[in-house]
């Protein structure tokens, strides 16, 4: 079943004569349980596409349906609700909330959802355990290494059981060992727990690990390759 359905999607920045087409008529479908990556050179529109799927940016033309919601039809508030309830985000620079501990960061989205304290604690600890951070629940981000911080970011993204996790260059700030471990971790979460991942990445190791690579060139889908498992 299609979790993300994109049709004729365009995104243009700027006005008048100075216009840049970041996306130009993208058609794409991501199914539940996929482990897929958007790839391509810098400026090809990977992050823009990820942002639009994540409800962080709006298309200039075309339609985007995420988990049954047509993003072109909803206002800011509903997009915020969708992000809170159905989407998980992992950013290149980890972007943890510096004043919250690892467990509190993992709990954050659950708290926004209004999940009661005991339940969100349980889910947050479970998520942290699944990324291998048992015993580090009470550490603040500045007491964790880069790799550990990105694991907390993944725990935060998966703790609330999102329909899809959108990860923008998740390994770009990590060394090769941490990058390898993180890719293994996300792969395991995908296989064992059925978490759907969509990456925007240049990282060859991550591209080797995904089941599907969607190559963007100049704002359009150039190649869409599925790897047989």
């Amino acid at each position: 079943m299609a979790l993300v359905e994109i049709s004729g999607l365009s995104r243009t920045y700027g006005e008048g004569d100075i216009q840049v087409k970041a996306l130009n008529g993208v058609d794409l479908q991501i199914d539940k349980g996929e482990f897929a990556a958007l790839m391509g050179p810098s400026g090809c529109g990977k992050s823009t596409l990820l942002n639009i799927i994540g409800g962080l940016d709006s298309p200039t033309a075309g339609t985007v349906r995420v988990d049954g919601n047509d993003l072109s039809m909803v206002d800011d508030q509903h997009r915020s609700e969708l992000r809170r309830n159905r989407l998980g985000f992992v950013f290149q620079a980890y972007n943890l909330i510096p004043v919250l501990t690892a467990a509190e960061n993992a709990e954050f989205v659950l708290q926004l959802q209004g999940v009661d304290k005991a339940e969100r604690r349980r889910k947050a600890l479970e998520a942290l355990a699944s990324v291998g951070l048992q015993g580090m629940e009470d550490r603040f981000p500045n007491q964790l290494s880069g790799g550990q911080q990105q694991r907390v970011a993944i725990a935060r993204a998966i703790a609330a059981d999102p329909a899809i996790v959108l990860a923008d260059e998740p390994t770009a700030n990590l060394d090769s060992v941490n990058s390898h471990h993180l890719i293994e971790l996300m792969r395991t979460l995908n296989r064992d727990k059925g978490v759907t991942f969509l990456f925007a990445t240049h990282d060859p190791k991550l591209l080797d690990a995904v089941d599907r690579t969607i190559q963007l060139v100049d704002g359009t889908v150039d190649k869409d390759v599925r790897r047989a498992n």
Partner: protein
Amino acid sequence: MIWNMAVRNIRRNKRRTLITTVGLGLIMAVMMMTFALQSGSWVAMLKAAIEGGAGHMVVQQEGWQTEQEASMFFDGASKVQSELQQAYPDATVVRRTLIGGLITSANGSSAIQLKGIEPGPERGLTLLDDNVREGEWLSTDRDIVIGTGLARTLGVGLGDKVVFMAQVATDDVESRLYRVKGIYRTGTDVIDNFLAYTTVDSTAELFPVDDPGHQVAVILPNADRDDIPSDGAARVASAHEGLKMLTWKEALPLLQEQMELDMKGSYVIFLFMGIIVLVGVLNTVLMSVMERIREFGVLLALGMPKKRLVRMVLLEGLLLGFLGGLVANVVAFPVILWLQEKGIDYGDMMGSANPLGDVALDTVLRGQLSAPMFLLVPIGAAIMALVASIYPALKAARLQPVEAIRHT
């Protein structure tokens, strides 16, 4: 979690929080100390004016207030006194006379005002007995107490004879012999040079009636100055022809106006200080918002409702203000306590500046510790800081997550 985040955000940049809260605290502490001194001085002034002057209520001849002529006495002052005492059993009710005349000694003379008072009950009211530097306070009808300036003019000391002469009701000049019983110094020239005190009974000899008085003053214990129960005194006054009752506000209209004007002036100053507090908090909260644009972008990207983000930033401002208010309390409390206990003695500076004219004023300026102020300042500061944080909070909420996350 919003609360936790706000508290931790405040603690995050400890130096900035410290500088801001101490800065705000010091400004507010100055406001508190100014207010304490001002209200302390007004309380002292009103107390002196009421107890040593008009009383909470005063019964006197109609027109006395403006003329203050010795001839405007009335007979039967003791009767009026006992009627007022019946109407106000707990009050101190005193008779007074005030006569302008000439005082002479073997070495000199001077024009003065002689105040006839009841030494016993007035002892606890007027500040004069505390200011007696040589000798004692009045005890018999032969005694007179004069100021240091007058003693110098007359060239007299304790036990010396002086004669007071005055025209009260007729063309005849009446005179009375006194012995200097005490010499006081208040620091106010007009009192120390031109006023003398004796017993009201001794002045009776100067009047053509047996029981004269210019004023009968009622001083209530623990009275609410703004709500004087004056009906009883008004009834007593109306039962005697030509007499009128005035409350202290009517008897001292200028003092009341002056106090209100002074307080209004202070409120303007406090308003400006409040604006400084407001700008201080605005600056800090705005700076902390601008530094965290990326973080706010993440919060919004994760689905934090904008209203919640606004609440968090407002809470941070509120906490900053409240902390500033607490710092103000910590700084102001011991200073105001000291001002209340010890005060600042400005006696040597007063000279002719006594705003109460011929009523002795405590020359020690004392602060007044007010419990509500210590509660209101942190609350008021928190509210002001909350108002100052509205703009930064809205600025944070208006951020577009996709742009904010890219912010460096």
